[in-house]
Each structure stands twice: as C-alpha cells, then as structure tokens.
C-alpha cells in the first residue's frame, strides 16, 4: 500500500497540487490508510528536522547576496567588462550577453536573477544596435541557465544536503559544464552570425579601456574568488562563505560603488526571505518524503524496473537524461531535484556512477528545463522583461537548446568534464 505514495504524488502534482503539500500529503494519507497513524507524527518531525540544518542556511544567504549585488548595480560593471573584451566581435553584444551571464553566475547562482538583471539592460541595448528583440531575448534566456551551474548554486546546495554530498565538490564539478554552455553558445553565435544577420558595431577596445573596465569590475569579480577560495582553503564552511558574500555585497554596494542605499535593504531582505522560506519548506518536506521513499523500498523497486530496461549504464543514463529533460519541462529545477534525487541517486550509485557526476547530470539537465517550454520559468521571466510573448521567446531559443543538449550528453558520457576539477582538489577519488 505504502508504495502507492509515488503515483498518488505524481497525480496530485499534475493536477496542480503545490509540491510542498504533495510531498507530505501523498505519504501521509497512505500511512493513515495503512493504520500507521503514529508514523504521521514522524513525518511532521522529519519536515521540521529537515529544515533545522546549518548547511541549508547557505540558501538564504546566497539568495540575499545575489539580490544585493543585483540591486547594487554590479550588473552594469560586469556588462562593461564583457563589452571591453568582446564588444568588437560580430554579434558583439550577444557575446557580451553570454559572457556577462557566466560572470554573473559566479555571484548569484540563479537563472531568474540573471534574466531580470541582464535582460532588462541588454535586451533594449541589443535592439538599439539592430538585433531583433526575439534574438536578444533568446540569447538572454539561453545563457541565463549558466547561473545555477557555475558556483555558487542554490540547487547544488539543495542536492548536497538532500543526498549527503559535499557542497564544495558539487560547486567545483559545475565549473566546466557551466563554461561549456557559455562557450558553446558563443560558438553558435559566431557560426550563425550570417544566418541571424548579426551586426558588428563596436571597435576593438584599447588595452587601457580594458584595464579600466577590469578595475571597475574588480570588486564584483572577486566575489566567486572569495567564496570558492574560502571554502576550498578550509577557511569557511559554505554557509559562512555565503554570509561573507552578503557582507561583501553590502560593503561594496554601499561604500565602494555607492550604488546601494540603506533604504534598499528591507525590500532586499524581504524578497530573499520569502523565496528562501519556500525553498526551506520544500527541502524539509523532501526529507520526510525521502524517509518514506526508503521505507517503501521505492528506489529498489524503481531500480528493478530501470534495470529491466537495460543493464548498460550508458543506455540507462541516456534514458534518465530523457526523463529529466521531460520533467524539467514541467517542473523547476529545485523541486525536481528534491523529488527525484533521493529516488534516482541510489540507483545510479549502485550502477557504479560517481555520485558527484550524477548530481551534475541532474543539476544541468533540470536547469536547462528552466528554459524549455511549456513551463520554463526563465521563459516567462524573459517574456516579461522583453515584452514579447512566451511563444516568440520559445521560437528564438529553440536553436540554442542544441548547445544545452550537446553539453548534457558531453558531461554524461565524459565524466572527466565534471570530475576533473573536484578530483584535483581531492573531493573525488
């Protein structure tokens, strides 16, 4: 009877039941029908205990740091820096858009923050230079998914907590895939420049101009260095590094760049707090869900089913990628990881897939889902920022998804792409 909780949950989810309630209702109702009413109390305790975690605190802190950087005008400095380096190329602002996303990813770790911050600035600027608005919006949306792949990353923290992995290992493993997506998009822009009639506007910046732009962007660019350097150097835990990032964002916003006002802080705190509260509740519910999944032997049953399809890990990884891609089309990356991580993770661990490798496959695939129709959050935000219809953004982004899919398959079948960096730092054997 208890094993039915997964189908019940999926049906409720498809009908529009909020994920948080579904995660506790589906196992709860079956425990009740099974006469295990006392275990419902354990479900309640698991939700509470799941939220009561020091490592989880990194989530509100990184969200707050991202909001502060965004509000403090740091985005403009990053764009100017990218412009100095790449603005002279054919399709220069498109390249600048992608590069700014890669740099912004080192600060915020959120695709939506990337679209709102960079999109509102770069889409009108690109349009003014002769790019179609559809293309500008599509490049913004396609490159924004780099945000949660390059560290710091909210979904990596969630995965690490739910699955008991090292946050630092996942952060390091995300670097190469994130760069691959960015470089892949730039290559595509260069190759398709004729087809898309991309303009060449800017002259090559002098080394002096590049130096000045680098100096202006120096403090924002130091953020990922401080975060990763602190964690890898054993100076801070990821949670402490996130708090340091908040303090750093406030200091440079208020005193160095002068673009953040004290009166901005309450609104920033509220926005970050509300978003974090939803994620923390979800993670708590996921811990309860995970316990019931183990009690009901769900991973074992699913493993038996999956292994009946094939015993070749390469084929199974392909099938899982297809499944994740489909799930990503309907569900945000965070909740999807919370639901699928505890179910799929143990199966692939048993098949000999490295847990960090599997985590990155899941994270990248589900993050790409943010930019795929019909339910990609990034598409909706891009539509709102650009003033286009969602369908137009979808038509624009469709060819660019080839890059994302190619990267997913590259990291799936060449694990070294994800594992080499964490291996160099001793996080993976």
């Amino acid at each position, binding site marked *: 009877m208890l094993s039915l909780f997964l189908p019940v949950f999926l049906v*409720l*989810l*498809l*009908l*529009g*039941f*909020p*994920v*948080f*309630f579904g995660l*506790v*209702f589906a196992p*709860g109702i079956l425990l009740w029908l099974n006469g295990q009413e006392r275990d*419902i*109390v354990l479900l*309640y*305790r698991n*939700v*509470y205990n799941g*939220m*009561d*975690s*020091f490592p*989880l*605190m990194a989530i*509100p*802190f990184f969200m*707050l740091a991202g909001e502060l950087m965004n509000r403090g005008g740091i985005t403009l400095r990053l764009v100017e820096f990218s412009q100095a380096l790449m603005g002279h190329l054919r399709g220069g602002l498109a390249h600048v858009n992608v590069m700014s996303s890669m740099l912004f990813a080192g600060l915020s770790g959120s695709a939506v923050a990337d679209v709102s911050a960079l999109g509102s600035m770069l889409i009108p600027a690109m349009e003014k230079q002769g790019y179609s608005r559809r293309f500008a919006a599509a490049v913004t949306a396609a490159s924004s998914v780099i945000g949660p792949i390059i560290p710091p990353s909210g979904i990596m923290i969630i995965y690490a907590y739910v699955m008991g992995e090292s946050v630092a290992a996942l952060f390091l493993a995300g670097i190469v895939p994130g760069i691959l997506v960015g470089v892949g998009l730039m290559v595509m822009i260069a190759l398709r420049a004729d087809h898309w009639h991309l303009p060449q506007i800017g002259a090559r910046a002098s080394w002096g101009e590049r130096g000045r732009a680098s100096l202006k962007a120096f403090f924002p660019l130091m953020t990922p260095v401080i975060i990763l350097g602190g964690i890898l150097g054993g*100076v*801070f835990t990821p*949670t*402490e590094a996130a*708090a*340091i990032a*908040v*303090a750093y964002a406030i200091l440079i916003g208020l005193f160095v760049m002068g673009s953040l006002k004290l009166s901005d*802080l*309450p*609104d920033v*705190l*509220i*926005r*970050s*707090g*509300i*978003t*974090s*509260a*939803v994620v*923390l*509740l*979800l993670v708590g519910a996921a811990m309860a869900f995970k316990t019931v999944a183990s009690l009901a032997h769900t991973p074992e049953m699913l493993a038996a089913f999956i292994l009946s399809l094939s015993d070749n890990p390469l084929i199974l990884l392909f099938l899982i990628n297809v499944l994740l891609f489909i799930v990503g089309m*309907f*569900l*945000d990356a*965070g*909740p999807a990881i919370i639901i699928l991580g505890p179910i799929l993770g143990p199966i692939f661990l048993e098949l000999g897939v490295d847990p960090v490798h599997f985590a990155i496959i899941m994270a990248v695939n589900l993050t790409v889902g943010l930019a795929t129709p*019909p*339910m990609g959050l990034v598409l909706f935000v891009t539509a709102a920022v650009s003033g286009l219809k969602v369908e137009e953004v979808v038509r624009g982004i469709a060819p660019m998804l080839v890059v994302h899919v190619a990267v997913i398959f590259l990291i799936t079948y060449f694990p070294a792409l994800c594992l080499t960096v964490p291996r160099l730092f001793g996080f993976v054997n």
Partner: protein
Amino acid sequence: MGALIGATKGLAKLNGALLALGRWLGAFLLALMVAAILAQVWYRYVIGNALAWPDEAARFLMLWMTGLMAPTAFRRGGFVAIDMIQLLMPRALAAALQLLLLALSLLVLAMAFRIGLSELSGLGARFATSSLWYPSGLMPLEWAKVPRGWMMASFHVGVTLLLLVNVELLLRAVLGLVGRDGELPAIAQDATLAGAE
C-alpha cells in the same frame, strides 16, 4: 452569501496584517542570521576564540524566518505547482479542481496543526537547546537555557499562518465558483513592509 463575503473580507484583512508583521520580523531575523554567522567567523579568525552559540542561534532564527515568511508566498501563489492542466481546463472545472486541492491542503495543515500542538506540549519541547540562554529572573539576574520548544514553535506558528491563509484562499475559491470573488480585495503581490494588502 453576504456573510461569506464579509467573513472572507475580515479574514483577508487579518491575514494581510499578520503576514505584513511576519515579513517585517522575518527580514529582521534574516539580518540577525547574517550577523550571527559573521560573528562566528570574526571570533574564530580575528579574536581566536570560537563561539558556541552562533550556529544554533542562526538555525533558531532561520526556522522562525521560514515560519513567518512562507505563508506570504503561499498567499501570493508562490508555492511551486504545475498549473498547466488547470490552464487547459474550462474555467468552472479548473475552479472546482482548485477548490478540491485547497481542501486537501487544508487537511494537511489541520493535521499538522494538531500534531504541532501535541509536540509543543510533549517531552521533546522541554529539552534545552545546547548553547542558547535567556534571562529567567532579573532580581537577582538568573540565566536558563532556551527550551527546544521555542524553536519548534516556529514551525507551529508557520503552520497556523498557512492554515489561516488556506482558509482565506478556500473561501475566495468558493466565492470564485459563484462569480462573487470580484467583491473581494485583491491580494497584493509586491514584497513590501507595508501592512496594507
């Protein structure tokens, strides 16, 4: 129907005020969390004296922040859900389905409320936290350890606020089914400290 509209308006006003207070407190608690962790780092590396309390204090604050701020997200439709099927349905059917789902979430929250009450009056709530103290007497000044129940109360308060929001949303959905929801004040979507919703 007039009584139902009146009750919904009253509950909306109550929720608007409570959640605004929750947001204000939650923002303050988030700032305190950052301060606690920075104090931890400062004392460990600069003063050379690691403090015992910041870890537990920051978790205490985070749990309360979650309890106080998550209900705002629920009221504004910010709980993650797949609403595609509802969007494809005829309006009346989608409204009926929404009503059913709100009834199910009400069931979850009512159960959680009941369990929360017994948890708070149970033995677990009386255990002390390991590093948090409060003044239990002023003349002379005495200190006692903060009971775990104070931490657990955060979840119960969160569930209670979610329950109130759920009832309001349910009443709104009922009125929506009969086409009278236009008479209700809209739920404000912007994240402000202001009490007015």
